[in-house]
């Protein structure tokens, strides 16, 4: 079954989740991600050892995931922006209780109810924790259908390995789009390494507690530092980005997800007319791939950040590059998907301010 198949993005995530040993999914209908919920309903119905629940609310769904994760299962929920806001309480608990889980956010226009068009308005919410408290969430941003599969597999691995929630950040376009994909081999969840903290009844061992309430301030401080050390470790381990035509570039565009595909199309166009422009595409948004930015900034001194919002990731770029480079921003919020031509024009006008074609 390892042939190339043409499949919708949401279905690719669902199929890969099941193949990655995910045996619990709870969700609530919201556009644009309903096809993932529907796919999980069908896929889990075919399993003997899985549970699908259409929950009464986004909040209930994420809390069911907390329970399933406590019980040791690989568990997932998904939603779109307004629903992810509701899930933040649960995500904060997952982080505090150090429970693995995968959360998919198919971003839509906002704030408020907004619209269902593709945007990147939830970058801050995703990468800054989102819920209350001093925590981080691993955030992965695929741009291609094959990456949806590869990243979903990795998301479950990271979640288990670091016992922490992992968010997959997509938008309605990626969720709806079909592209050929080759799926990873299925994993039998019974063959995954046992988890030492699972709540499955204290048979032949001392009883266990999974909790986040730590009234003793000294212990709570230590818990926060423990999480901090874990996050520092994650920062060392996970820094993912693709670089494209950066070797000789005089200007590098930084974009992720759908925006990166548009940017790549624009770069192809301006390369055709001789402009030395490249792309840096973060795949991990938290941790932000600062090392790769650092490396690139050694020979590139001008960057254009393009996002489908009014400027969020650009702050991480500014932090990463400090004052060593010139950083421009171009963004379209509200569900507008720029055309490669539009971005090519932005690139060209920036480029000619500084460089001549023959440079």
């Amino acid at each position, binding site marked *: 079954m390892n042939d190339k198949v043409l499949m919708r993005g949401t279905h690719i995530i669902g199929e890969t989740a099941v193949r990655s040993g995910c045996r619990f999914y709870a969700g609530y209908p919201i556009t644009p991600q309903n096809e993932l919920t529907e796919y999980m309903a069908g896929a889990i119905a075919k399993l003997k050892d899985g549970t699908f629940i259409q929950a009464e609310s986004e909040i209930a769904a994420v809390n069911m995931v*907390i329970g399933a994760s406590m019980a040791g299962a690989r568990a997932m929920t998904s939603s779109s922006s307004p629903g992810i806001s509701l899930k933040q*309480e649960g995500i904060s608990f997952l982080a505090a209780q150090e429970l693995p889980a995968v959360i998919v956010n198919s971003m839509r226009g906002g704030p408020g109810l907004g619209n269902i068009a593709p945007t990147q308005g939830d970058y801050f919410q995703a990468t800054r924790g989102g819920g209350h408290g001093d925590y981080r969430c691993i955030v992965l941003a695929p741009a291609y259908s094959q990456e949806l599969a590869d990243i979903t597999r990795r998301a479950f691995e990271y979640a288990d390995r670091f016992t922490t929630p992992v968010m997959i950040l997509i938008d309605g376009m990626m969720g709806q789009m079909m592209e050929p994909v080759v799926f990873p081999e299925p994993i039998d969840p019974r063959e995954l390494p046992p988890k030492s903290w699972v709540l499955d009844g204290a048979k032949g061992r001392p009883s266990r507690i999974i*909790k986040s309430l730590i009234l003793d301030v000294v212990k709570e401080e230590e818990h926060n530092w423990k999480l901090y050390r874990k996050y520092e470790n994650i920062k060392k381990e996970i820094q993912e980005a693709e670089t494209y035509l950066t070797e000789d570039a005089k200007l590098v565009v930084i974009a992720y997800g759908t925006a990166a595909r548009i940017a790549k199309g624009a770069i192809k166009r301006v390369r055709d007319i001789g402009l030395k422009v490249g792309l840096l595409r973060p795949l991990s948004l938290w941790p932000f791939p600062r090392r790769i930015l650092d490396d690139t900034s050694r020979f590139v001194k001008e960057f254009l950040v393009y996002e489908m919002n009014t400027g969020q990731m650009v702050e991480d770029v500014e932090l990463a590059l400090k004052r060593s480079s010139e950083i421009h921003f171009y963004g379209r919020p509200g569900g507008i998907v720029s055309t490669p031509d539009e971005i090519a024009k932005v690139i060209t006008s920036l480029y000619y301010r500084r460089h001549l074609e023959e440079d």
Partner: protein
Amino acid sequence: MTAQLVFKRPRYLKKTVFHYCPGCGHSIIHRLVAEVIEELGIGEITIGVPPAGCAVLAYDYFDVDMGEAPHGRGPAVATGIKRMLPDRIVFSYQGDGDIAAIGTAETIHAANRGENITVIFVNNSCYGMTGGQMAPTTVVGQESTTTPGGRDIKRDGAPIDLSEMLALARGSVYIERTSVNSIKNIVKTKKALTKAFKIQMSGLGFSLVEILSPCPTNWKLSPLDSCKWIDETITQTFPLKVIKDETIKTEL
């Protein structure tokens, strides 16, 4: 004359001192739950879900696996655990604010889905841990820090009959309201808890025991007067009775 052991710490209570106020019903209810778990022989397969509220520290007292839920989400967390481990016994332990206000949706839908879990609903008609504010179950006329002059239906709305509402849910099997304000009622409560857990062990579905519990600190009454006040006042709004029992035809 040989000494006979008539009273001991139940196996599934840890050797810890409760933090509860003098006269608080939680201590009694914890003990009853631990006794029932021991008597049914399910201590090694039980997972408890404590709430936010006075009983938030229940995981420090019960010597079974315990997984904390966010405020009001106990039935959802318990659902996740139980669905993944259907042969384990899962209970959530919740206060009135937790179950009947912020967690209403999770409770009603867990009951309606017929989740095979047991819910212990401790009703002390106030938000105890946060200092005695009005709860959804605060009775009409009852003083609280947010109902000066007593709960007024016009201003504050009426107390909510959550257990009666849950009885309407198609998936609920057994719902009983008891109290721990007298020895007789304590014995009844233990029977109800036993029945609720047995229902889960038989895989019949959602069981819930609502327990009227004294809160002398916030009621500003002595422990004894608190017990009396339950009889005289609270049971007028929340009568002690079996609210739903679908097991009558079933041999437990």
